[in-house]
């Protein structure tokens, strides 16, 4: 099959920067609590659809960027994002074939795993944050997944 899409690094970087801006944009607290992790979703999308362009490396650098912007322990988001992109890249062929609804469920699992790694590192480094609010974004992230894939598909050039 001829690949008609252009998985150029340029497009990936463009979407990643937009997603990063969306993830750090100042919002009122109630909105900020339900804000999906746009960058994580974008990186997962690219790991599934174009694992050669956006893969573990992309996950690592995006995670590092999140660490710097969030003022987190350097490497916290990087580790979590690398871990889930690894799984996403390994299973990308299976996930890609699933219908949108099932993909959203898988994303829910991935986002919960991501947040769990952050949660564990927060605890180990001595500033536990046990508020249940921190898990909400996994749910909103899964809800927004069909929309995100539609937008990103368009950017990628497939319809």
């Amino acid at each position: 099959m001829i690949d008609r899409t252009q998985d150029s690094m340029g497009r990936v970087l463009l979407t990643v920067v937009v997603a990063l801006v969306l993830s750090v944009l100042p919002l009122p607290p109630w909105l900020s609590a339900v804000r999906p992790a746009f960058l994580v979703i974008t990186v997962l999308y690219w790991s599934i659809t174009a694992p050669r362009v956006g893969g573990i490396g992309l996950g690592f650098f995006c995670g590092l960027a999140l660490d710097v912007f969030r003022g987190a322990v350097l490497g916290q988001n990087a580790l979590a994002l690398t871990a889930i992109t690894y799984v996403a890249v390994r299973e990308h062929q299976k996930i890609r074939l699933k219908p949108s609804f099932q993909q959203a469920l898988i994303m829910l699992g991935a986002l919960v795993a991501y947040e769990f790694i952050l949660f564990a590192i927060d605890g180990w480094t001595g500033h536990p944050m046990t508020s249940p609010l921190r898990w909400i974004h996994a749910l909103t992230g899964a809800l927004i997944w069909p929309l995100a894939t539609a937008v990103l598909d368009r950017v990628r050039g497939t319809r």
Partner: protein
Amino acid sequence: MALDRRGGWIVHARYYLSAAAYPLQLAVSSPAQAWRWTQDSLTARETLQTQNAALRQRDRELSLKLMRLDALERENAELRGLRGALPALADHWMAAEVVLDAELKGARQHLLINRGALNGVFKGQAVMDNFGLLGQTTRVSPWSSEVILITDPEHAVPVEIDRTGVHTIAVGTGDPDSLSLPYLPANADVKAGDLLLTSGLGGVFPQGYPVARIAEIRHDATQPTQIRATPLAHLEALHEVTLVWFQDSHPAAPTHQKDGVTTTGNASLQRQPAPALDLLPVPAFKRLTPAPPVPTNPAHRDDQ
């Protein structure tokens, strides 16, 4: 933070990475800044006039106070047996604008301000507003720095109660309008409305700056007494903060212990973590002598 502390190079890497991130952070905050600017420039004439009048009145009040203060300072210096008046405690100050407070994620209370190492800001510097203590800098990049507010759950300020001189520690709660005082004994002399000042211990803040006012004291027979204080600084909707440099030679400057000798000056000193739970004197105290039930007089119970 443990990893950050382990190696010097990570701190350096972070310094440059945050410098690289700063343009994007500025860009992200620009819509909010633009909105604020529009609001400012569209303020009605009457609003400006009333504001102006209020400021003028405040200015007059403050100058009157200052006159009296000069006299008091001279008198104080004479009482202490000093030849001349002491140098001013606050050496100089710098206003900084808040770039991002999006860091208020969950319980964490952090700010990003637009002054950094190139402006002479150092780690562990006191940050205030016109009403009281706000917090201190935790991370400094070339053009920006991160401020941890006194209400962050990881932040603790050594304070003294102005009325009685009792020293204790005010710990952040994660809620922008309350601090808790967990290390006061149940029988401590403290009342609602008491003013908390920085005690000058801990090496970051100088002595005698207002921090908070006691808001409520909850006695409970089964739990340690809970004391809540409201910060005097306006922690919500912060736009501008003040960074302060202190004169190290002033007696009220932050004390700093080095090799068992108390010296002043704190440039190398970092923020104060909250004491570990097992270091608390309270449980040991409880084990020795079970706390007597708090005497409740009927009148007291009535107004509850």
